[in-house]
């Protein structure tokens, strides 16, 4: 057993081991916090092994481990990463210690329960990204719900926490039940849960000749994923869950898992159906962008504003990936990472603000900039990254997704939808800058007047500055990330199901890029 074949198991299960250790240790707050920090930092360190030893020129899965688990039905313990999942794993590893740091003071009771659940959540989430067996994936996917629901139910902010947790769980669980039917149907047709094999069969139309059933199965997959993203109009749970959940949980609540699953499973197993439903998804994406931005504009609660801003950002990604262009998919994946960092930083800052003034209500805040200069500095940088200012990371992703949606051949009026989506950029800047103005400038609000507050302390600086640095680095040096992402994006956009049967998993074959022969990484190289 080499490091390369066991590194993924280590990354996935190390947090669980940590969680068990924390559960066995006494419920001393300091001990629990430091324990969680050490575990998450070590996990992050392990994830860095992946980009360091990744074979960039290759497509297909690396760091694979593939052993039989259950004989009947044939279930394998099959893990692996490719250009799509590698950076998502690193991102999850990166966000976890920051989540622990930002919870240091915010979680002031039942620390043991909190950090144990937080670490379990970490295992489930990374497991989703690396599982290459449909069954194993489903296991992690369902498990990702459980710690999160308990976290919301226990550590939620108001008395409606249990309701928000239930809503979150039901929204995600019921479509997942249908997803299981879809999976079992696929298994009944093909006799395998192995994703690479299913991808090959999907590309060569050999899963089933029953078109109607194939369609229903693809919908079962897509709906389960779209709810988890969430894609407009399935976002009913998002606002309440974000409103209630503690900061560290919000940072990993939305986006990554659902979008990754669409890219991996919907596109991989049902390439043809995914392209046929693209017009609808592009439209929903564009509407979601505009809707999220407009609703965010009228919020007075900062957390709800951030929730709708999240919806808007995730809709950009939906729009991009369903364009089925290299630029759109690359940009979408890049934007998933961006959203994890920029959105995460935004929620961390909001959480810090709440620790000081005990409110997210903008009407009670104002003039905070005079009191907290470091806070406002970082807040503005984060807001600019969220808005998509050229030179920062958000711009690269938004530019690529929009250029992808403009080039798409799967929708009748790409210009129309792209224009609608672009309005979201304008409104996005609007609500963000307006929020900054209302919270940090102008006359002193009621709360800052009553409560003295304190500027970011060393711990918070340590948690936030790595993100701010990444905004800039990812804004100017995007090719570093794109190398891996592009190897996936080119394949996903090119695997048109009709022409190219043997793309996967043959790594040596040169991929034909359909519409954009230009290297898609140029978008970031301005």
């Amino acid at each position, binding site marked *: 057993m080499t490091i390369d074949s066991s590194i993924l198991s280590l990354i996935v299960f190390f947090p669980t081991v940590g969680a068990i250790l924390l559960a066995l240790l006494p419920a001393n707050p300091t001990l629990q916090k430091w324990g969680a920090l050490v575990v998450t930092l070590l996990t992050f360190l392990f994830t860095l092994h992946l980009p360091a030893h990744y074979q960039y020129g290759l497509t297909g899965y690396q760091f694979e481990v593939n052993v039989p688990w259950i004989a*009947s039905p044939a279930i394998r313990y099959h893990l692996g990463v490719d250009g799509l999942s590698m950076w998502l794993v690193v991102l999850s590893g990166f966000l976890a210690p920051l989540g622990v740091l930002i919870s240091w003071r915010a979680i002031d009771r039942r620390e043991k329960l909190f950090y144990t659940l937080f670490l379990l959540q970490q295992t489930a989430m990374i497991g989703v990204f690396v599982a290459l067996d449909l069954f194993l994936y489903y296991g992690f996917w369902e498990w990702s719900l459980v710690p999160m*629901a308990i976290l919301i139910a*226990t550590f939620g902010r108001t008395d409606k926490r*249990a309701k928000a947790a239930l809503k979150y769980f039901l929204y995600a669980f*019921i479509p997942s039940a249908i997803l299981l039917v879809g999976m079992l149907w696929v298994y*009944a047709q093909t006799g395998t849960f192995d994703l690479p094999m299913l991808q090959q069969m999907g590309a060569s139309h050999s899963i089933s000749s029953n078109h109607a059933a194939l369609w229903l199965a693809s919908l079962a997959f897509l709906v389960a994923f779209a709810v988890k993203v969430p894609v407009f109009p399935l976002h009913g749970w998002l606002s309440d869950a974000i409103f209630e959940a503690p900061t560290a949980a919000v940072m990993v609540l939305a986006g990554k898992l659902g979008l990754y699953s669409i890219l991996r499973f919907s596109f991989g197993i049902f390439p043809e159906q995914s392209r046929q439903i693209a017009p609808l998804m592009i439209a929903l994406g564009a509407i979601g962008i505009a809707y999220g931005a407009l609703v965010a504009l009228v919020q007075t609660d900062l957390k709800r504003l951030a929730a709708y801003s999240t919806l808007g950002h995730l809709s950009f990604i939906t729009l991009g990936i369903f364009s089925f262009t290299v630029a759109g998919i690359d940009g979408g994946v890049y934007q998933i990472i961006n959203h994890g960092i920029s959105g995460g930083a935004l929620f961390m800052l909001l959480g810090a603000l709440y620790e000081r003034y005990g409110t997210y209500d903008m009407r009670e805040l104002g003039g905070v900039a005079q009191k907290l200069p470091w806070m406002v500095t970082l807040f503005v940088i984060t807001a600019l990254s969220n808005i998509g200012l050229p030179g920062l990371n958000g711009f690269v992703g938004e530019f690529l997704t929009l250029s992808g949606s403009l080039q798409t051949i799967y929708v009748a009026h790409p210009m129309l939808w792209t224009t609608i989506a672009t309005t979201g950029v304008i409104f996005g800047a609007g609500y963000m800058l307006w929020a900054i103005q209302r919270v940090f400038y102008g006359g002193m609000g009621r709360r800052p007047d009553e409560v003295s507050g304190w500027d970011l302390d060393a711990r918070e600086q340590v948690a936030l500055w790595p993100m701010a640095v990444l905004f800039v680095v990812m804004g100017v040096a995007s090719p570093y990330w794109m190398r891996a992402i592009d190897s996936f994006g080119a394949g996903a956009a090119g695997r048109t199901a009709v022409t190219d049967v043997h793309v996967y998993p043959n790594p040596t074959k040169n991929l034909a890029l359909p519409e954009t022969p230009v290297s898609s990484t140029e978008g970031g190289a301005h």
Partner: protein
Amino acid sequence: MSSALLSILPEVVLTVTGVLIMLADPFFAPKASKKALGWLAVLGTLGAAGATLLQLRTHQILLTFSGSIQMDTFSVFFHLLIASIVLLTLLVSLDYFKPGATSHSGEYFALVLFGAVGMMLMTCSVELLMVFIGLEISSISTYILAGYRKGQATASESSLKYFLLGSFATAFFLYGIALAFGATGTTSLNGIASGLSVTAFPTMAFLALAMMLVGLGFKVSAAPFHVWTPDVYQGAPAPVVGLMSTAPKAAVFAVLLRITATTYSSELLHARWVWLIGIIAVLSMTIGNLGALLQKDAKRMLAYSSIAHAGYLMVAYTALPADSIAAAAFYTAGYAAMNVGAFAVISQLGGYDEPLRTIDDYRGLAQKHPVLAAALAFFLLSLIGIPFTGGFFGKFYVFNAAIGAGHVWLAVLGLLNSGVACFYYLRLLTALYSRKLGEEGGEFEGSSPAAAIAIAGAVLATLLLGVLPGKVLGLAQRGATVQVSRNR
């Protein structure tokens, strides 16, 4: 050892232990602790499990007592399952009866063992009259056990209701036997199987099956024969509910498997009754889950949940014989592990008087007893059907079998139902982790050491069935092969 004795050795061990307990009971002072008798019962159950393993090691099929008892892998599977359930129940019950609380705690242990004899007898009988005797032995002891907390009005209601409706249902089963005899001239399952192909009264044979379905459907609390379940479970002592919601049901499901998958298994007959089971399955799932949604009482909620689980299990019967036997057998095991575990925790928290009724009474448990709360949460997650638990694999195999037989609609309805179901389980689960409402509300008792072992065992079983289901499924599949191949 003669093969006849070997084939009923577990039953013999249990009966002897039960009689010994009855004989020893009068030597104890009326209000004294009868824990020693409980430990004797535990030993007897372990002996029965050992005897079953002895049966397994012979690797053969024994047909004894004039062809009325058949010892095979299938019967061994259910014997082991019932012995495990009874073992956990006994461990949980050891400290449930506080000395002085009741003077009948000695008989309690004997009744549990006698019940187990009946259940085991059902799983190895291939003669309908013998099945009937087993059913009666098991039922009579559970009727008494249900009313064991004699001071409580709900307990008497529970016992009486169970007895009246239960005898009614048994009559249906007996009617079915009579009709089967009329149609085929025999009450032996193997004899009926061969008689069915040549019978001059196919309608009567079908009616026989329908009657037996009613009787057995009552025992497993499948809708529309489920109405007794919530009241009985609410009034019965928690450890007994853990027992009677799993072990007798496992035995009845085994009987049903022998009837549907081997006796009435020809393709022609299968097509005739499969819709009937499909309807019962859908009704049970839906009524169980919708009913549970409305409950505030935790035990009633779990009662409705057991109706729903009977429905999921019935889905397995619509599949092809070999698949259906393995899937259903595995499901009974998974359900037993998590449900006995859940009721074990509940019985330890409340104690004999069971002051914890509503879901809100369980608030704050995680702060007082984090380990018990985590165990109960784990059982609830397994009941929901979250992966890596026994409950998930049970559902997985059942619905996989149904889809394999082309019943995609049943799988869709079943899994949608399990989506609805997670709502009420989660209500209890979130209550465990919520803060207490005010100062009043339930005080929790801790778990006794013996019960802690039982709960740990149930957690381990639920986890193992969810992570490494291979061994249990392998045994279930071997049992299935025996059944199907004998019939060909």
